[in-house]
C-alpha cells in the first residue's frame, strides 16, 4: 500500500485535505501546484462566511499537517496531460502514479470583459477578490486615499450571464456579497452600502440569518436589479445606472466605490486535460463527475477522481467534504487494484 502513488493536481484546500487523508490511510500522495505556494484561492481571502473565521485558520493548519506528514509537494509545476497511471508535467516530464485526483479549482471571471462596469478603466472599481485583499491589508480606501462613503456591490458579474457565456450560478457570491457588506459596515459604520442583485441565494447554514442581520443590524440596502453601466464622475466617483425591478423604475446613483462580485468559471486548461484523459467536460467548462449521486467524486474514467470547485462552484466546507470523500474512494480503488 505505501507504494501506491496518488497524483493530486492542485494544492488548494481540496488538494491539501485529500493529501492528508490519503497519507493517513497509508497511500503516498504527491501534490502538484502551479503557484509558488500552497493554499489556492482561499489563501487570498480575509474572513470566511458565515462565521467570519479568518481564512488563515483554515489554510494554516492544513499546510502545517502537510509538512508534519512529509507529503511530497511540487510547486511552480504545471500539468499538461493526465491518465490514470501517469501525469505529464510542463516540460514533458512524466510522473508515474496509481491514481489521479483533480483538485485544480476554478478561475475567477475576468471583470474587464464586462467593460461597461469600467474595471481596469476607471478608478474605484474593484472585484470582490480585490476587496478581500484590501481587507487583509487592513483598510478599504479609494484610489485618492479617502474613505468611501457610498459603496455599491454588484452581484452576478460573470455568473448567470449569457452575454459573457457564463450561464451557471457561481453559488457563493451572494453570501460573499452579504459578508463583504457587513465587513464594510463594521469597518466604516457611517458608509452606505448597496447590494444590487438578481436573486439572493442563501443556501447554506446561517446564510439566511446573515442576510437578515445585514439588513436589520447593519442597514445594508438591497436593490433588486442589475447595474447596466458605470461611468466616471469628478474626483473618482462613479455614476451607476440600474433598474430597481421591484419598483419598476430606472435609477442613477453616484457612488465612491463599485465592487464586482466575480463568479467562478472553468479553468482554461480543463479542456486539454479532459481531452488527454479521455473524459468530457460539462457544457459550462467545468469537469463533471460520473454521476451526481453515488459517484460524485469520480470521473468517467476509472482511476481519475475529482474534488472541489474544478467540478462546479462550491463553498469551502463543501470542498473539504468532497476531498475527504474522494480520498476514501481512492483508497478503495487502490485496494481493489492491489488485489487484482
Amino acid at each position, binding site marked *: 500500500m505505501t507504494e501506491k502513488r496518488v497524483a493530486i493536481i492542485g494544492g488548494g484546500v481540496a488538494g491539501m485535505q485529500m493529501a492528508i487523508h490519503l497519507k493517513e490511510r497509508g497511500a503516498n500522495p504527491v501534490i502538484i501546484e502551479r503557484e509558488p505556494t500552497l493554499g489556492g484561492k482561499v489563501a487570498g481571502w480575509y474572513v470566511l462566511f458565515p462565521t467570519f473565521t479568518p481564512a488563515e485558520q483554515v489554510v494554516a493548519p492544513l499546510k502545517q499537517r502537510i509538512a508534519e506528514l512529509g507529503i511530497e509537494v511540487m510547486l511552480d509545476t504545471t500539468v499538461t496531460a493526465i491518465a490514470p497511471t501517469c501525469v505529464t508535467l510542463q516540460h514533458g516530464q512524466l510522473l508515474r502514479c496509481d491514481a489521479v485526483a483533480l483538485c485544480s479549482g476554478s478561475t475567477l471571471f475576468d471583470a474587464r470583459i464586462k*467593460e*461597461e462596469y469600467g474595471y481596469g*478603466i*476607471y478608478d474605484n472599481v474593484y472585484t470582490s477578490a480585490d476587496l478581500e485583499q484590501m481587507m487583509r491589508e487592513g483598510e478599504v480606501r479609494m484610489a485618492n486615499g479617502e474613505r468611501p462613503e457610498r459603496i455599491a456591490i454588484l452581484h452576478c458579474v460573470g455568473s448567470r450571464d449569457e452575454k459573457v457565456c457564463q450561464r451557471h450560478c457561481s453559488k457563493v457570491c451572494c453570501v460573499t456579497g452579504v459578508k463583504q457588506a457587513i465587513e464594510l459596515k463594521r469597518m466604516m459604520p457611517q458608509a452606505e452600502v448597496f447590494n444590487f442583485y438578481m436573486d439572493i441565494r442563501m443556501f447554506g447554514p446561517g446564510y439566511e440569518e446573515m442576510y437578515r442581520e445585514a439588513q436589520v443590524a447593519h442597514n445594508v440596502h438591497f436593490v433588486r436589479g442589475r447595474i447596466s453601466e458605470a*461611468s466616471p464622475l469628478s474626483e473618482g466617483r462613479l455614476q451607476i445606472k440600474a433598474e430597481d425591478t421591484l419598483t419598476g423604475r430606472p435609477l442613477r446613483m453616484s457612488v465612491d466605490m463599485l465592487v464586482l462580485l466575480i463568479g467562478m468559471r472553468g479553468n482554461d486548461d480543463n479542456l486539454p486535460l479532459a481531452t488527454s484523459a479521455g473524459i468530457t467536460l460539462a457544457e459550462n467548462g467545468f469537469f463533471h463527475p460520473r454521476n451526481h449521486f453515488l459517484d460524485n467524486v469520480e470521473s468517467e474514467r476509472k482511476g481519475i477522481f475529482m474534488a472541489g470547485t474544478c467540478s462546479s462552484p462550491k463553498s469551502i466546507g463543501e470542498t473539504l467534504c468532497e476531498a475527504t470523500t474522494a480520498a476514501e474512494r481512492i483508497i478503495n480503488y487502490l485496494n481493489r487494484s492491489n488485489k487484482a
Partner: protein
Amino acid sequence: MSFYAHFTLPFIIGALAMFAIIAYRYTSWIVQLPRRDKALLRKGILSFATIRSVWEVICESLLHVKIWRRDPRLGYMHMSLAFGWFLLIAVGSVESLLYTGTLLVPLQGHVFFRYFATAIDKHIPLMDNIMDGLLLFVLSGVALAWFKRLRSRALGMRRTTRHTIGDRLALSTLWFIFPARLVAESVTAAIYGGGGFLTGSLGALLGEVVPASVLQALFEPVWWFYSSVLGIFFVAMPFSRYMHIFTEIPLIFLRNYRLSVGDKRTSYDNFQVQACSRCGICIDPCQLQAELGLNDVQSVYFLRDRREHQLTLNTAATCLMCGRCSTACPVGIDLNALRLNSRVEMRNTPSEKRFVYLRGLDRSEGMGKVGYFAGCMTMLTPRTLSAMQSIFEAADEQVWWADKSGGVCCGRPLKLSGERDSAHKMVAYNTELFRKHEITTLVTSCPICLRTFKEDYNLEGIEVLHHSEYIARLISSGRLRLRKGEGAFVYHDPCELGRGCGIYDAPREVISALGTLLEAKHNRRDALCCGSSLANLSIGDQAQLRIASSLTQELEQSGADTLVTACPLCKKALGRSAKVPTRDLSEIVAENIV
C-alpha cells in the same frame, strides 16, 4: 399567305392574356406611385438615365453579367435561357422576313414559322442552321436548369430555392417549351424536309425509324402541344415567380430614375418584390442558414411570402439585416429596405405619451464645433470613449460631448425593429440638440448611429464622420502622430459601416499607420456579420454566439495578434469568443499616440 391554324389558339390566347395582365399591373402600379416618385419618373425619362437603363437591361436582363461574375456556369444557364429566347424571337422575325419578303408576319407566324414554312417552297439553309443553333443554345440552358434541380452544387450554389406549387406548374411548362419546339420542328422536317443541323438531322432520323403514317398522325398534335405549353406558361407566368422576366426591366428604369424603397410601403415596392426571380443566390451568403440551419427566412422566402400576402412577423423579424444578401442579389433588389417597411407595418406603435421626458433634456457637456456622439453601445464599451478622449486631447480639438453623461438613443434600434414613429422622436430630439449647440462636424464611434445620422437625419451644414474617418484625417493632416509598431491587426468590417455606409478604407489606413494590417477571408463587401446585429429581433444569444465564434475563428486564421473592429457592438460580439484581444480602432490609436 395565311398565318393561322387552330393549334395556335392556346398560344395566342395565352400571350394576349399575359400581356393584358402585365400591362394592367404595370399601369396601375405606375398610377399609384406617390407624387414624389411620379415627379422623379417624369424628370428621368428624358435624361441620360434612360440610356443607362437600356444598357443595364441588356447586361442584366439578357446577358446576366452579375450572375456570370458570381459563377460562370450559373451565368451561362441564365443567359442561355434569357438571351437565347430573346434571339429566337428576334432572329425568328428576320427568318420570316427573309422567307416571306414581308414584315407583316403576325406573332404566331414567327413562333410557329416552321409549321407555316411547309407551304413555302423555299429553303435558306443558313437561316435554318442559325435558328437551330439558337434552339440548341436555349436547350443547353434548360438542360443545366434540370441538372441544377438535381445537383445545385454543380452550378456553384450550395442551396437552391424551394418552390410553391404555382411556381412548379410554370417551371414545368417552361421546361417543356423548348423540347416541345424541338420535337414539333423535327417531326415537321421528317415529313416535309428542311430544317437545320439539329431539327433537320433529327427529322431525317425520325423519317427513317418512324413510319410515315405515324408521323402524319403526330404532325398536328406536336404543334398543339408546343402551342399549349406556351399558352399555359404565359397564363401562369404573371402569377408565378416568372413575373420577374419582364418586371426587372421597369425596375431598372425606375431605379435609375432614383425611385427608392422607403420606410412606408409604396406602389414602387411592387416592382421590387415582383422582380425577384427566386434564383436563391441570397441563400448561401446568409449566416442564419450557414451557421444556424435556418432555411425559411432568407430574402427569397421573405419576398415570396410578401408577394403572396402570407408574410409572418417571424419571417420579417428573423434577419440580421447584415446586407450580405443584398450584395449578392443579381437583380439589385433593396432587400433590407423592403423587410424594414414590412416590419414597420407589423410593429409600428405610435404613442404620443411615450418619450415625453425627452422635452427640454440636455445632458451634453463642453463647447466646440466638433460634436462627439458616443451612442449607447460605446457607453457600454467605455475603453472606446476614453480612447476618443485621449485622441481629441492629442489633436487639441475642442469637443462638445453630446451624450457622455447619458444621452438619447440615435433611433436606429427602434427603426430597425419597425417602430418608425418612436425612432422619429429620437431623430427630432437629437437633430434639435445638434443644431442648438451649433456644431459643424459630428463624430461618432458607432456605425449604427452613423448610418442613421446619414440616412434619417437632416443635418445639412453638419458633416457626419465615423471616428475612423475623423482619425484618418487627423493623421493625414499631421494633427495626430502615431508610432508604427510590430503589431499585426486583422480588421473586421462592421456591416453598418461597410455595406451600410461604404466606409472600408479609412479604418485600414489608420491601422496601416500603426502596425501591419491583415485581411480576413471574407472582407469589405463580403465581410461576415458578427451576429449581434440590432436588426435581429428573434435569434437568441447562444445562436448569436455561434455566428460570432465562426467569425472570430476566421479572423484568427489571419494570424493576427489583435482583432480590430470599428463598432462597439461587433467588439462585444467578437470579444466573447476570441482567443486574442479584441480592440476598437480608437483604442489601438490612443495607445500609439506619439
